[in-house]
C-alpha cells in the first residue's frame, strides 16, 4: 500500500528505488509526479526521457511513456520524440554531469531552438553513479574523488547558461522547498518552449561525505538556510547574500516554439495530405 500519488503515477512494483538513503532525488521525482497530477495531464501523452546517472533512473519508476537513453543525450532523443509527435508532453530528467558536461552541447542547442521540452536537472553537485567525481556544478575548492586536492574548476550556473542559450523559462528549486519546486515544475511544463529547472538535490553518500557536509538532515538544513528567494534578493543587503544561492523563477517569457514553427512550414508547403 502506498499513497494515492504514488499509485496514480508510479510503477509501484518497481519501488523502492535504487537511490541511497537520504538521496534528494526521490523527493524531486515525487515533486515531478505531483506537478503532472496537479496539471491534470493525460498520462498517455506524458513522455519522460533521461540520460545516464543516478537521476536518470527516474523514468523507470514513473508510469508514463518512458525512455532511458545514453549518457548526456536525453535532450537530443527528446528533440526527436517531440518533433515527431508534438502532442506529447516531453519532460527530460537529467543530472548535473549528464546535462552540463557530456550533454552540454545538447542543452544549449535545445534551449536555442526553444523546443517545447521541460528539462529538470537533479543537481547534486557530483557524479554519484560512478562514485563521487567532481562535476560542472561542484563548487571551486570542494572535493570529489577526482579532486582530492580541491576542485580548481569553476561551477556552472545552469539557469544562467540556459537563459543565455535561449530557454524561455528558467527556475531553481530545492529538495527542501518541495511545494515551491512542484509549482516551478508545473510552470515549466506549462511554458510553451524550452524550460530549465535546476532542482538542487542532496547526495549525502558522496558529495556530502567528501565535503564533510554531514548526513542527509544536515544537507537539507543547508538548503533551508542558504537558499534565498529570487523575489526578495533585491531587498537584501549584500552581506545577507554571502554564500547564499537563489531559488525561484528567473525567466518566464514567450517566444516562437520550434515544433509550432515547423508545423507552419508543413502547413504552407505540404502537397500530399
Amino acid at each position: 500500500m502506498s499513497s494515492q500519488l504514488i499509485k496514480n503515477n508510479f510503477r509501484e512494483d518497481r519501488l523502492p528505488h535504487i537511490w541511497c538513503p537520504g538521496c534528494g532525488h526521490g523527493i524531486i521525482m515525487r515533486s515531478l509526479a505531483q506537478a503532472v497530477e496537479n496539471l491534470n495531464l493525460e498520462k498517455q501523452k506524458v513522455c519522460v526521457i533521461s540520460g545516464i546517472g543516478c537521476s536518470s533512473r527516474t523514468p523507470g519508476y514513473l508510469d508514463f511513456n518512458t525512455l532511458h537513453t545514453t549518457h548526456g543525450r536525453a535532450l537530443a532523443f527528446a528533440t526527436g520524440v517531440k518533433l515527431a509527435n508534438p502532442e506529447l508532453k516531453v519532460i527530460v530528467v537529467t543530472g548535473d554531469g549528464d546535462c552540463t558536461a557530456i550533454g552540454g552541447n545538447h542543452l544549449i542547442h535545445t534551449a536555442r531552438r526553444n523546443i517545447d521540452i521541460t528539462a529538470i536537472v537533479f543537481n547534486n553537485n557530483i557524479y554519484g553513479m560512478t562514485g563521487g567525481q567532481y562535476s560542472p556544478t561542484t563548487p571551486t575548492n570542494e572535493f570529489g574523488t577526482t579532486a582530492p586536492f580541491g576542485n580548481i574548476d569553476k561551477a556552472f550556473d545552469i539557469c544562467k547558461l540556459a537563459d543565455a542559450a535561449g530557454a524561455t523559462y528558467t527556475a531553481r528549486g530545492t529538495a527542501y522547498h518541495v511545494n515551491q519546486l512542484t509549482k516551478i515544475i508545473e510552470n515549466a511544463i506549462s511554458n510553451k518552449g524550452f524550460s530549465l529547472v535546476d532542482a538542487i538535490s542532496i547526495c549525502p553518500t558522496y558529495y556530502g561525505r567528501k565535503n564533510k557536509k554531514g548526513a542527509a538532515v544536515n544537507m537539507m538544513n543547508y538548503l533551508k538556510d542558504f537558499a534565498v528567494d529570487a523575489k526578495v534578493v533585491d531587498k537584501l543587503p549584500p552581506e545577507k547574500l554571502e554564500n547564499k544561492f537563489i531559488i525561484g523563477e528567473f525567466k518566464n517569457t514567450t517566444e516562437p516554439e520550434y515544433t509550432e514553427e515547423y508545423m507552419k512550414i508543413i502547413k504552407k508547403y505540404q502537397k500530399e495530405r
Partner: protein
Amino acid sequence: MDNQKAKKELKIIEDWCKGCGICVAFCPKNVLTMENDKVVISDLDKCIKCGLCELRCPDYAIYLEVV
C-alpha cells in the same frame, strides 16, 4: 482539527524506509523517531497532519492516507 485532516491517517511502509531521518528532523511537532534505522510514530496525538513528512520522504515510506 478540521474535518478533512481528521479523515487522514498517518501511514508508514517500513520496507521502503531507508532510515535517512529527514521526516523525523523536519516534523514540526516531533511526532516521529528513529528506531533501528526505521521511522516510527512515537506520539501520534501531536500529529497535525501537515504532510511535511510525506513531502520530503525520499522513499515514499511515510504518507497521509485519506480514510
